[in-house]
């Protein structure tokens, strides 16, 4: 019974963390884009005169507006699929966070709690499976809208998603080869060692090419600019979610931002040490010049969770800056990049990684 309660608490924590970072992401989207474009951004909505730099506008006014809008369902649409599509877009992305580790262990009341909501030994494959299921939201949303622009956007979007899934999967394969495991928590723990006694051995030092491929494929999977042709504002009206209003539109937008946070979380865990703080072990800091600082286990866990959250925020911010800086790819350029650019690079990376691992293991392997 206590196990169920602990798992429920962990799941609640990670979902709340994700939703907070997503809210922060939405706020960044408006404020950072405003700063990049040399304007002020949304700052009018205020409660009792407190506008909070636009926080009230983004986090209070916008959701209320979305939820109170009329849910327009047109005749001639397939009602069941029209209702299911936003759900199929949002739910798989949210449940992926069950395998993302947000800390090492928490020692409480004689129990050692692994800070990961679900300890699957095939964790990274679960992530790929849920990303594959996310395609259905796009393709069914486009089809069920009975609108030729939505259908075009839906087909383009799903073709783009399945093309970039392959490059993402291959980048993941080379990371799996490096750490010899599919479990994300084991991968995060394996990045705690120090290279040469002082450099934290984070994944990006071992797999830089895989990081670039994964980041590009992740941004393409979440259909953000520069890969947002399925949603091409100014070309396809709003692409596959043109005919959605109110809460369903909010679900589609939410799934967009939650995927941004998901890509940030995966990049952090695979390539930047996840929750690792440099030189922090389970019992405190062990600095390379010999000094040590003992810390109680709850402080260590708190530092690790904070470091994970900060890295999440950083990569979310990075994706938002990329969105407001680069122009959009044309569709054939997009497909060419996916199949003729990223796929051979990721394949070559797998082959080279395997060679290096076998040669470095020596003649005994």
């Amino acid at each position, binding site marked *: 019974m206590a196990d169920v309660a602990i798992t429920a608490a962990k799941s609640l924590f990670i979902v709340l963390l994700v939703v907070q970072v997503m809210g922060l992401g939405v706020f960044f989207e408006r404020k950072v884009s405003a700063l990049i474009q040399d304007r002020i951004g949304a700052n009018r909505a205020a409660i009792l005169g407190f506008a909070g730099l636009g926080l009230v506008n983004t986090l209070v006014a916008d959701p209320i507006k979305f939820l109170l809008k009329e849910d327009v369902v047109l005749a001639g649409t*397939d009602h*069941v*699929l029209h209702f*299911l599509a936003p759900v199929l877009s949002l739910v798989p992305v949210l449940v992926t966070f069950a395998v993302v580790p947000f800390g090492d262990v928490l020692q409480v009341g004689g129990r050692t709690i692994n800070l990961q909501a679900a300890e*699957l*030994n*095939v964790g990274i*494959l*679960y992530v*790929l*499976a849920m990303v*594959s*299921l996310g*395609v*259905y939201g796009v*393709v*069914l949303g486009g*089809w069920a809208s009975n609108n030729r622009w939505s*259908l075009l956007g839906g*087909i383009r979007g*799903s*073709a783009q998603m*399945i093309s970039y*899934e392959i490059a993402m999967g291959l980048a993941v394969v080379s990371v799996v080869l490096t750490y010899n495991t*599919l479990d994300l928590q084991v991968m995060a723990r394996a990045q705690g060692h120090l290279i040469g006694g002082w450099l934290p051995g984070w994944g990006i030092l071992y797999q830089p090419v895989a990081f670039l491929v994964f980041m590009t494929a992740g941004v393409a999977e979440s259909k953000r600019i520069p890969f947002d042709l399925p949603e091409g504002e100014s070309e396809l009206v709003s692409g596959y979610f043109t005919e959605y209003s109110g809460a369903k539109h909010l679900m589609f937008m939410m799934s967009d931002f939650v995927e941004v946070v998901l890509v940030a979380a995966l990049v952090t865990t695979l390539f930047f040490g996840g929750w690792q703080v440099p030189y922090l072990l389970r019992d405190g800091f062990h600095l390379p010049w010999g000094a040590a600082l003992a810390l109680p286990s709850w402080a260590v866990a708190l530092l690790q969770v904070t470091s994970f959250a900060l890295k999440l925020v950083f990569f979310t911010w990075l994706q938002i800056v990329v969105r407001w800086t680069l122009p959009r790819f044309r569709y054939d350029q997009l497909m060419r990049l996916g199949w003729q650019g990223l796929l051979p690079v990721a394949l070559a990376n797998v082959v080279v990684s395997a060679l290096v691992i076998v040669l470095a293991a020596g003649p005994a392997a």
Partner: protein
Amino acid sequence: MSPLLFLLLAALTVASALTVVVHTNPVHSACALVLTLCLLAVFFLGLDAQLVALLQVIVYAGAIVVLFLFVIMLLNLRVEARAMAGTLLVGTAAAGGVALAVLIVTALRRAAPPATANLPAGFGETAALGRQLFTVYLLPFELTSLLLLVAIVGAVALAKKPT
């Protein structure tokens, strides 16, 4: 997996499988097929086959049925008037189906190899599957990669518009 959970999921699986073959709208059939495949993945998880369960979701539910949906949408298939064969054929096929199911269960139960009580350590994990795949089943593995290459080339060649 508790028997009650098994019965619930089995009832749901049979219901969605029936939806696949009975429903007149092809897109709804495809969605029911996705549901059936995901439920089968849950059964695989209950049978200690974690890798196979996730591969089922990634390959079948995440790629093959998406391909089906693409083709349905490209051909713009709507609900048809003559979706099923005549009543006589449906009745005979249903009776034949029941007989086939009984036959399969009886044959498999008689031919099933003896059960073991203990599972070896690491059963169903990636390492165990990989060990079998790259030692005992190496030749089929290499031939499968050749088969996939042939399938890709064939599919592209067949589906291209004749210029």
